[in-house]
């Protein structure tokens, strides 16, 4: 049995090599890393700028938030971003001019801020409770999100594409008469994908979070990556056996990727919470992954229990369906 298993493993690695799987994973890695390092870390939300039009030099306020405008028109143009605040000292009393941002509360704050900037504004030192600075947080956050997307995509698609190729080649039919168990057939695929996903996780984390920082979080991250990889690979396996061709499968996948993971990402990026998200299985996997990146106790005991149960059920389902398919193929 184990001799057969090692052959199966070798065959699966070869299939992945010929499908340029590793090359594409490497390309994804480069793409994500470039995006994180060159674009995402620079993303910031700047302070509200205050534009002051003061032709008679009535205002003596000095502040780093104040920009001088030379005409009323310049003031108006500067404020057209619906974020900046204009203060016109040529009017009596001085006028705060701004375009509404669409949110009433924010507008009220902006007006208050505009007034306050003209007085002596002192910055207090607030109590800091977090352990990361902005760049660290951005790196961890986006790496968690990309990894989540990549693992759910690659495991799901990769395994399915290998299986579809085998289906075309008639491998399932041949397996029906080979002395290798169905479980070994599935296990070898799972092992290969699990390994490649774990290596991908390590590389992505090292490159984007930093080697020393990632050492402390990697054990937790790898655990979550392993769970996600197994669940998605098995789901991919089931779908690949059930659906008739890869085209159908890929369209189904697209639907899943866009409409199932978008709410999860939205919630993750913005902190918006919907009640129904608690019933979204991907949401829990995503939260656990993100917590792992932030070094928090990743998830509770019931979470792991549900994950293990899900993997077991999916594995059993995959064995069962593979046996049925092999019988159907004769």
């Amino acid at each position, binding site marked *: 049995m184990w001799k057969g298993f090692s052959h199966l493993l070798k065959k699966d690695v070869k299939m992945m090599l010929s499908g*340029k*799987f590793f090359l*594409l994973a490497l*390309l*994804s890695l480069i793409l994500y890393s470039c995006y994180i390092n060159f*674009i995402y870390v620079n*993303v*910031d*939300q*700047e302070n509200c700028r205050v534009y002051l039009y003061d032709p008679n030099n009535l205002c003596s306020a000095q502040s780093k938030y104040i920009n001088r405008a030379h005409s009323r028109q310049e003031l108006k143009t500067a404020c*057209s*971003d*619906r974020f900046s605040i204009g*203060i016109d000292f040529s*009017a009596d009393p*001085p*006028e*705060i001019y*701004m*375009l*509404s941002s*669409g949110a009433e*509360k*924010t*507008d*009220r*704050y902006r*007006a*208050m801020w505009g*007034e*306050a900037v003209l*007085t002596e504004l002192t*910055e*207090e030192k*607030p*109590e*800091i*409770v*977090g352990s990361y600075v*902005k760049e*660290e947080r*951005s790196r*961890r956050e986006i790496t968690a999100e990309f990894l989540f997307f990549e693992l759910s995509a690659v495991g799901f*698609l990769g395994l399915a*594409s290998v299986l579809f*190729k085998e289906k075309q080649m008639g491998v399932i039919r041949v397996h029906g008469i080979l002395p290798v168990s169905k479980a070994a057939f599935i296990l070898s695929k799972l092992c290969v994908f699990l390994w490649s996903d774990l290596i991908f996780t390590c590389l992505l984390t090292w490159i984007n979070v930093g080697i020393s920082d990632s050492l402390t979080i990697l054990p937790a991250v790898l655990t979550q990556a392993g769970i996600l990889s197994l669940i998605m690979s098995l789901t991919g396996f089931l779908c690949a056996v059930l659906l008739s*061709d*890869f*085209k*159908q499968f890929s*369209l*189904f996948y*697209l639907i899943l*990727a866009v409409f199932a993971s978008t709410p999860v990402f939205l919630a993750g*990026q*913005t*902190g*918006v919470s919907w009640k129904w998200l608690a019933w979204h299985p991907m949401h829990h996997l995503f939260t656990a992954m*993100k917590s792992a990146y*932030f070094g928090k106790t990743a998830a509770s005991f019931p979470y792991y229990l549900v994950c293990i149960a899900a993997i077991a059920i999916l594995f059993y389902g995959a064995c069962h369906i593979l046996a049925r398919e092999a019988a159907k193929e004769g």
Partner: protein
Amino acid sequence: MEQLKYQLKNIRRDKLCILTFLLPVIVGIIIRFLPAMNFLGLSETSFGCVQNDLSKETISWLQSIGNLTEYETIETLKEGVNNPSTQMIGVLRRKNGIRTILSGDEFELYETIGKTLPQLYDMRADQPAFSKTISPVSEKSDKLKFLFIAMTLVTAMFMGCTFNSMNMISEKEEGTAFVNQILPMSMRSYLLQKLALGFLGGIVSAMVTAFLCIQTAAWQTSPLFLLVILSAYIASLVGLFIGHFSSGLMTGMVCIKIIMILFLAPPIIFYLTVSTDSAVYPLSYLFPSSAAFYGLMELLAGQMENLGLYLVILSIHAVLLTCLYFFIVAGKGSNRR
């Protein structure tokens, strides 16, 4: 035209393909009948406090400038402030005023709010020395709904890309590509047919979705139509690129995945987090979907200040990609012939 009929006949059997184009329409229907979602929370500052800590007056002051969430204990408040998904500022009572808690990883804007909030609070009773002119937004906006609509529309346009690339790759896998080579049909007309399929599908899907989701005024129709046409064209062209360069279904799928990320993620991230004046912002125009996305958001908000710019950017993308494609791919194809 005759040939296009055969292509359409070919996809008619593929029910799932048709479903793909219908999918954004279905989502459009859901969005249409969804009750207004409250998205204002995203553009408003969020504050957190501990139950029974702040006075009623402070609470109503905080609620007048942002969203206030109450926590049971100081520990849960700190956890809330520390949550990496939010930019929450913790507010606690102090003698004659308030003090703030930050997590230290906030964007510059929220860091400044946290640092200056106590002083703003102290100044709240001062007599206003200014008159205020706040020009309102032209329409009452529900940004979350707009964001969903724009995302659905961009996805609808993207479907042409998926459809084209999958169509071409499966022809390669089934051997139809070889048959095509000996048919009396030029590479150019073959590519045009393929381009037309995804393009038409993308347009129909996006237009129906747009019709369902957006209550368009007469002046909005033509810019919207232009946006959809240009984006659907670019998407279907990108699909041809993928179809041409992918040797197998798997390579194709991974390419589609990467393109999908590039299509959907940057515009949303830029839209949500980067100010339009920022130096990084124009970088997002490198992705054709960004221009389409911003254009849609602007149309939805009832403006059209930068619409011309977005249309120009989309046209540049379309022209550049077309030239690139026909020089590299079609040129090579006709040489071989």
